[in-house]
């Protein structure tokens, strides 16, 4: 029972699943990081370590039929939405068994079966596509909602503005979910906008906007659920700004000169979304230390399995170079 964590929205089972998902994301990305350092990953990758609660909390409010659009920093979103880690890892290694046959890579993982409409390497692009998917839901009367993940930096793209306005005037079932991790690549959001909270921008579109603690998975789930309910009931879009922090650099190489080590330490030490949620679940007796160790072990094994699967998978054959261009 977690009544004193919040009104009973989720069963113990579900709460444990959230913790497991967050842990899975973190360990998945730690593995990705290692593989990258070993030179096994082409190009670049963007890690969301430290931001696991936004992905998991937001997706906890969604059904399998609901959709998400994601970003360059999309591993967490994918996993939280139910995308499997074996073909994800294989994709990141550019293998034939990957979700995109090795053609897309880290920035383009998609799994339409679970409503993951894809990561996107263009900042704010998912914001434009999401309302389209939501329009289909509305026109075809399919009942699903669409949640668009994007970063703080993305809110300065014109696409953000146009998309929120369109979704508002058409009352589309969309949740605009901003992961405000304080920085773009290096630009501090404080220097890039002149409002206190990104969520204030919702007013410009006549939709609700709210700023929440993005490192508290329960809070994320609860407020997302409210927005999902609104959307599902034909009440249109909501802008959620979830405050969080990425622990790693922006991508492959980043000296992180734009922020202090103290700031980083502070977030890691006292606002780790996984540690704090685990603490809560322990306190509330939803979880035991033993069960947690068990969980960790299971996930470690799962990750090892995914890495093994990916590493042992074949490279794509050159024959597929020119397939999948046209339908």
């Amino acid at each position, binding site marked *: 029972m977690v009544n004193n964590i919040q009104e009973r929205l989720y069963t113990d089972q579900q709460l444990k699943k959230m913790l497991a998902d967050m842990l899975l994301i973190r360990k998945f990305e730690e593995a990705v990081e290692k593989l990258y350092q070993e030179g096994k990953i082409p190009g670049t990758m963007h890690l969301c370590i430290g931001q696991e609660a936004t992905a998991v909390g937001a997706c906890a409010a969604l059904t399998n039929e609901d959709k998400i659009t994601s970003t360059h920093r999309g591993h967490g979103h994918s996993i939280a939405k139910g995308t499997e880690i074996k073909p994800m890892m294989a994709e990141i290694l550019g293998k034939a068994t990957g979700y995109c046959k090795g053609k897309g890579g880290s920035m383009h993982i998609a799994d339409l079966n679970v409503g993951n409409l894809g990561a996107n390497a263009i900042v704010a692009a998912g914001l434009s596509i999401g309302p389209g998917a939501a329009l289909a839901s509305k026109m075809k009367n399919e009942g699903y909602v669409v949640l668009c993940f994007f970063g703080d930096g993305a809110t300065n793209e014109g696409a953000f503005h*146009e998309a929120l*306005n369109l979704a508002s005037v058409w009352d589309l079932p969309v949740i605009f979910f901003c992961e405000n991790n304080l920085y773009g690549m290096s630009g501090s959001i404080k220097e890039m906008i002149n409002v206190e909270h990104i969520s204030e921008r919702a007013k410009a579109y006549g939709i609700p906007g709210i700023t929440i603690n993005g490192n508290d998975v329960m809070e994320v789930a609860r407020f997302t659920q409210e927005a999902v309910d609104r959307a599902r009931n034909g009440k249109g879009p909501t802008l959620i700004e979830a405050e969080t922090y990425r622990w790693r650099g922006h991508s492959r190489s980043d000296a992180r000169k734009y922020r202090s080590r103290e700031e980083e330490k502070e977030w890691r030490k006292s606002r780790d979304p996984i540690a704090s949620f685990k603490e809560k679940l322990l306190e509330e007796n939803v979880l035991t230390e033993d069960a947690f160790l068990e969980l960790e072990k299971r996930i470690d094994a799962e990750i090892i399995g995914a890495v093994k699967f990916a590493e042992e998978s074949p490279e794509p054959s050159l024959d597929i170079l020119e397939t999948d261009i046209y339908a």
Partner: protein
Amino acid sequence: MREITYASAIKEAMVQEMRIDKDVFILGEDIGIYGGSFGVTNGMIEEFGPERVRNTPISESAISGCAVGVAMMGMRPILEIQFSDFVMIAMDNIVNQAAKMRYMFGGKTQVPMVVRLPSGSGLGFAAQHSQSLEAWMAHVPGLIVVQPSNPYDAKGLMKTAIHNNNPVIFFEQKGLYNTKADVPEEEYKIPLGVAEVKKEGTDLTVVATGIMVNRTLEAAEELEKDGNSIEVIDPRTLVPLDIKTIIESVKKTNRALVVYEAVERGGYGAEIASLIGESEAFDFLDEPVSRLGGIATPIPYNPKLEKAAVPQVEDIVKKVKSMMNK
């Protein structure tokens, strides 16, 4: 048979498909009661209502992105961009998203959308409303590029475009909207990648696109008087391109000229000319493959200047003569 305009032919294709298939709908700026900048969608909102004739805010980025998303989810949107010049604001969604999505996802999705782009010069709208940008689109893998030159083709190609499962860029020459021709009301489609020999001839092949097909046919009549027999080919679709028909023709006539409205420099005519030059037709050529395209200038406002900026009938006649008299 009925004569209808190019604009009506496009509308008829859309209307007929919308009657059959609930998933087909149109969106764009002022396409509702206003009927669109060129009246193409006139009356459609009255028949289909505002849900399927979606008047949008002035937001080319959002509406193109919306088209991508709605298409991924199984609808078949037809997006009108008021003038092709404004497509720049929608380029990311068309080129980085729609065109690449299927490939990037390893075949896991498809994006069946049609983007209608009123294009070209000749109406006095000046530099920001008169461009011919088909070369950009044809350079992008994943896009289909269509450029009908007459009402019959416009209707048949629009139907094909709507049924196609890829993003189709549909260039409509603004100057053609009011041209009329026989167009059957009944169902017919024109396949992609099938050029049409508009006029047979023996001395020289002109490959012309868009409105240049009409000008070339006029020029050919003129040239006929002097005993020059011109074969005129309209590729109709640039991607896929029916290069075979073109090569066969050049092998017969031994001379080739490519005529296009877009800026000659870097235009798609260069691709067509290159393909001819690289092909087996090379050995049949009596002289170089030539091109006649637009001057490399922004389109000027003054009508006399504007005309001078793109090939006119006389220019085609002159060019062909110079090729014949070498």
